[in-house]
């Protein structure tokens, strides 16, 4: 398979991934700088007596959102638990697979021990199932469905595509390995391009918002 005289694989790991990485860096910095540089209003209210310091409040906010508050129903529990599964799964795949470590080593020069392919494959299947469960819940839960926009579905798709194409590439299913590898890299390129402009940006923003929420609530004396 050829694109503009080069093989699909050459295209994927040449122009495609390079352009995507450039868009990713540009987009992430743009959004981070413009968000963090926004003028902030000074809170002139007096904080409640005996509240923790701002950094402690920030940490508490981050910690509190890691789980589900008591009193929430089983479906909320499922949502948080399922979220943990695919986030940890994705981390295992991205950092535990030898080929991915080598890719990152090529970019940043760091290397670390890796896991056997069988463990990674299992993690990938679990992650895939978890992502599908998340989508099913999003599409069936009446409130969640109302809240969902195209952004959510696109973000889901660009996350699931690398997992699917990666599994196909490892098991040589559907096409020749180099074609599958090229599709896998292209799916990463798609993820990188979408990342700064869609909800995947939460990877950078999630702890900022949770810290901010924690500090605001603490100042007002909200107890957990």
């Amino acid at each position, binding site marked *: 398979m050829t694109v503009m005289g080069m093989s699909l694989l050459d295209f994927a790991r040449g122009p495609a991934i390079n352009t995507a990485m450039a868009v990713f860096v540009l987009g992430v910095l743009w959004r981070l700088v413009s968000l963090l*540089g926004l003028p902030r209003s000074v809170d002139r209210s007096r904080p409640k007596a005996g509240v923790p310091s701002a950094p402690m409040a920030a940490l508490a906010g981050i910690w509190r959102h890691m789980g589900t508050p008591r009193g929430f129903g089983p479906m909320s529990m499922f949502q948080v638990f399922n979220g943990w599964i695919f986030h940890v799964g994705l981390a295992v795949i991205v950092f535990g697979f030898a080929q991915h470590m080598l890719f990152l080593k090529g970019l940043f020069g760091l290397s670390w021990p890796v896991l056997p392919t069988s463990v990674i494959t299992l993690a990938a299947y679990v992650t895939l199932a978890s992502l599908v469960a998340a989508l099913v819940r999003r599409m069936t839960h009446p409130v969640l469905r109302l809240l969902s926009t195209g952004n959510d579905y696109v973000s889901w798709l660009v996350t699931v595509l690398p997992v699917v194409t990666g599994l196909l590439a490892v098991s040589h299913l559907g096409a020749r*390995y180099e074609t599958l590898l090229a599709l896998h890299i292209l799916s990463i390129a798609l993820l990188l391009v979408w990342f700064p402009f869609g909800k995947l940006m939460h990877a950078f923003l999630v702890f900022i918002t949770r810290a901010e929420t924690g500090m605001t609530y603490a100042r007002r004396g909200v107890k957990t």
Partner: protein
Amino acid sequence: MPDTGQDRPTLGDSLAARGISRRSLLKYAGYLAGLMALPPMASRAMAEALAGAGRQSVIWLSFQECTGCVESLTRSFSPTIEDMIFNLISLDYSETLMAASGTAAEEARLAAMEANKGKFILVVDGSVSTRDDGIYSTNAGKTNLAVLKETAAEAAAVISVGTCAAFGGIPAARPNPTGAVPVSEIVTDKPVVNISGCPPIPDAIAGTIAYFITFGKLPELDHLNRPRAFFGDSIHDRCYRRPYYDKGLFAKSFDDEGARNGWCLYEVGCKGPVTYNACATLKWNGGVSFPIQSGHGCLGCSEPGFWDQGGFYKPLSASVMGNNAVLGGAAAAGLVAGAASVAMARRRRAAAMAAASKPGETK
């Protein structure tokens, strides 16, 4: 000896005349059937077909090449079944192997072309120079380009032997000063089979020619026109070190513990996963070994553009042609865009506050 009534003696006749028994032919057919993954019961019929065929005329042209491909095919320690191919063909022209030289050699080529018009197999090793009408590689006062066009016009089929003839190879590597192209870019009106490799496995060259003689047609080819029988599986799929890859056990350098234990060579640049060839099964030097077994990763020599793939010792997955200048530029652009939107937001807020305050009063 049975009279076949043909002009040319049959292979059976010419073999008998040299004291080569029909058993040899049967053994060769069995060997060939095994090589090409044909049903084993076909070998008897193949032996009969071979015995009845005429010796196949072959014209071998060498262009921008290193003679490694000819060496690969003719290397031999003792008369063996693999050498049988030389009894099946009549090598009517080969600059490397023929005794004749000069004008006599060129006449031999034209005579063979005339005598076997439309029937001979043209084997080419080496790529074809095209820049400035191909004057960078000439022979007997003619450019390779002209000789290829002239000879291929009369051939039954063309076999590009080696990566240079098949895909351009090293002469076509950047910056390709001679404008080297593969044979298939010049010969477009005939079947061109690619037996790639640097050099190709001799059994793949001989097997393809023998298949053509036996069945009168070319074997099944892949998307790069390589015979599937030899190029159907990747080196990685057939590698005896594959279990280590699956377990995530990799040699990190050529002299570490992993290398001594025979672990997978992926991290030191093995291109086995994207390279299609039969090295891992047929092996080299009479089945003695192949590069990975000798401790070195696969270079990917049977794939197009193998010379320009970013480094033999770079892991396959790390072969991203990263561009720091582009990334740095993107980072700078991102910072500028962010700063600009901050400035805009601050200016808008200042304007809004000014409008909300009494005229003349500023914050």
